[in-house]
């Protein structure tokens, strides 16, 4: 996806003015397909920057990005920090891990403290849904949701869309409609849908970009009400879910969520919902395998698929930095 034409000069093409309408990226509730596509296009320019010998541009010089992680996630935090530094922003990292909360400090108190450090943009992860929305109400800075409870993980969905759009194009299947690149495409998302912010954000974004989403998992982890979202279907049958899919995304199983009142055993889950080569044969001929990581090897996806030529797993990880660069750039530039 990062082409040989690495010498394309910065600065990046300014994103469509529409994307600048947004102060925050909390979820995609108020985003249009056009705005998202402009972010994806900006990410492509950012990928070209990252392919150069000197992987840094001055686009965000003088800006400060603070990462506020109330829940551990080294991978996502590093990806955001790399994205900020590659554009010459200063970075402040705050990892609460629950310590200050134990002292009875509210998240608003925590924000007040951090605000004294005068960041322009806050990257927030929290175990409770909605915290980025709450902080966005209280701060003058921009807020990017880096994962809030079960609710949303918009930059993950963006990097998934970016990766898949590029992979389909490389496979000779470029978008028929520029503004709705997934028109006619189907994404199957398999696993613990109920507890998954990745599933929710992907369902929101993939359908916004014109595609259909099939959510699949054991009935106890598949909330019926999600079928009310336009373009979203639910099934507990994995074979049905993958049939005709352009991509199959397996979700990470969080072992602590699989108590005996939810699922009988992990073995039962693997037997019924692990994505295997036989399933991919039911999918579209070009179908890709995706996973938001970190992978539980041979649990959600058979290793031969996760490591195989149809796998986009590594490219998803690699897409994280350019996509997050595009998000930071779009929200910050033109705001001062």
């Amino acid at each position: 996806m990062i082409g040989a034409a690495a010498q394309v000069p910065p600065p990046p093409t300014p994103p469509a003015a529409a994307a600048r309408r947004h102060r925050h990226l909390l979820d995609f509730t108020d985003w249009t397909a056009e705005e998202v596509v402009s972010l994806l296009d900006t990410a492509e320019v950012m990928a070209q920057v990252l392919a150069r010998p000197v992987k840094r541009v001055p686009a965000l010089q003088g800006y400060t990005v603070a990462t506020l992680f109330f829940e551990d996630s080294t991978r996502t935090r590093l990806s955001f920090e790399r994205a900020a530094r590659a554009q010459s922003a200063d970075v402040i990292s705050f990892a609460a891990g629950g310590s200050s909360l134990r002292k009875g400090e509210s998240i608003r108190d925590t924000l007040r403290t951090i605000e004294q450090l005068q960041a322009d943009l806050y990257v927030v992860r929290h175990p409770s849904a909605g915290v980025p929305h709450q902080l966005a109400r209280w701060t003058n800075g921009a807020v990017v949701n880096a994962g809030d409870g079960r609710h949303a993980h918009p930059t993950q969905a963006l990097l998934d869309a970016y990766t898949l759009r590029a992979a389909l194009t490389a496979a000779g299947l470029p978008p028929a409609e520029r503004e709705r690149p997934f028109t006619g495409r189907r994404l199957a998302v398999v696993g613990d849908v109920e507890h998954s912010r990745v599933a929710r954000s992907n369902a929101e974004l993939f359908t916004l970009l014109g595609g259909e989403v099939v959510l699949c998992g054991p009935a106890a982890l598949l909330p019926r009400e999600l079928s009310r979202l336009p373009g979203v279907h639910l099934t507990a049958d994995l074979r049905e879910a993958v049939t005709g899919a352009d991509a199959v995304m397996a979700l990470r199983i969080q072992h602590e969520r699989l108590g005996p009142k939810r699922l009988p055993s992990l073995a039962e889950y693997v037997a019924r919902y692990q994505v295997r080569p036989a399933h991919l044969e039911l999918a579209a001929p070009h179908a890709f395998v995706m996973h938001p990581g970190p992978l539980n090897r041979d649990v959600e996806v058979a290793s031969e698929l996760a490591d195989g030529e149809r796998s986009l797993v590594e490219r998803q990880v690699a897409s994280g930095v350019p996509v997050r660069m595009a998000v930071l750039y779009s929200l910050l530039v033109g705001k001062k």
Partner: protein
Amino acid sequence: MRLVLRGGRLLDGAGDRGVHDLYVRDGVIEGLDLGGAVDQEVDAEGRLVTPAFLDLHVHLRDPGQEVKEDLASGLAAAAAGGYGTVVSMANTDPVVDDPGIVADLVARAARVAGARLRPAAAISKGLRGEELTDMAALRAAGAVMVTDDGVPVADSRLFRSACEYAAELGLVVQTHSEEPSLRDGGVMHEGAVSQRLGLPGNPDAAEAVMIFRDGEVARLTGARVHLAHVSSRRGLEVATWLKASGAPVTVEVTPQHLTLTDESLAGFDPVYKVAPPLRTADDVAALRAALAGGAVDSIGTDHAPHTLAEKQQDMLSAPFGIANLEVAFPLLYTRLVAAGELPLERLLWLLQDGPARVMGWPAPRLDPGAPADVTVLDLETERAVEGARFRSKAKHTPWEGEPLKGWPVATLVAGRAVHLAG
């Protein structure tokens, strides 16, 4: 001490008595248009004069959680809301499970200018659901109700015993009917909105299941069981069936469940986090439709104050509860009566005769000799809700800025003006 409410329109459960001067002497109503010298005069011209409201469901947080509310602030808030009598819940720290605590509450409340306090006591020691409290001693100390409100009584055998004791002692049992293992860790109504928002849901089935259990145990034991804060269509339908089939249950609904839906949570503001949760528009419609008929016996506020800092935590950590004593009547008057959905007389009944009947108390009247617990309502002036002006310590409200009519301008308790607006 003699006081006159001058020139108001008098309305109570016996009917519209027209415009009169209402004289009050030594704590009781003296009569109409008597004339003569008075110590205090309250202008009620153009206003409605009616018995002060009864609220069978308030959390005053005293003892132990005075940072949220205390007797002085809570009883003043009640008076400002037009309430003359409130029943305080037992989930304080320590829990009201000891006769000494009940006696202390009664004694301290008597020194506070505000609504009368009739405390409820706990069903189980420490609200742990394991051991019964000594209900006879609690009643002797002044408790009028037993309830573990805030915590459903999970153990059905313990609940049966509680009902047997309460029936024998003539105490009303108030329930918090949510089946705990179905409620699980839910922080809002389980449905399309909770799934979209990724917040753990609490299904209406948790309420319906527990109302059924509580109602059948009421039938089994003969205890008078008041089903607090019924919030869902399913819960209401089960309660209605229980009543129709002769179970001795009564039904309470709250202002929040009559006016707000789970869509309110879309902005992730814990000010809307309450138990039972705000339900769907369909549930709100079912509760509203039931007000006019006999399915609902009382409106209780479930006034549940918390500090702003507590309500500015995340959605999972923030405590459940809405503080609403001071907006309850204007809210319901504006949304239901002024909107033409419910007759004024019915709303008043649900705040006066209804709760009195639940408790077995005399219906409040403006008759000579009756306790002079009276409220004066301004049904005309529209004013926006301003939480900052609340007497309650909890000054955040879901209805901030909402223009409402029906503000209580004066409240008398035992003939004393404990609330005077302006």
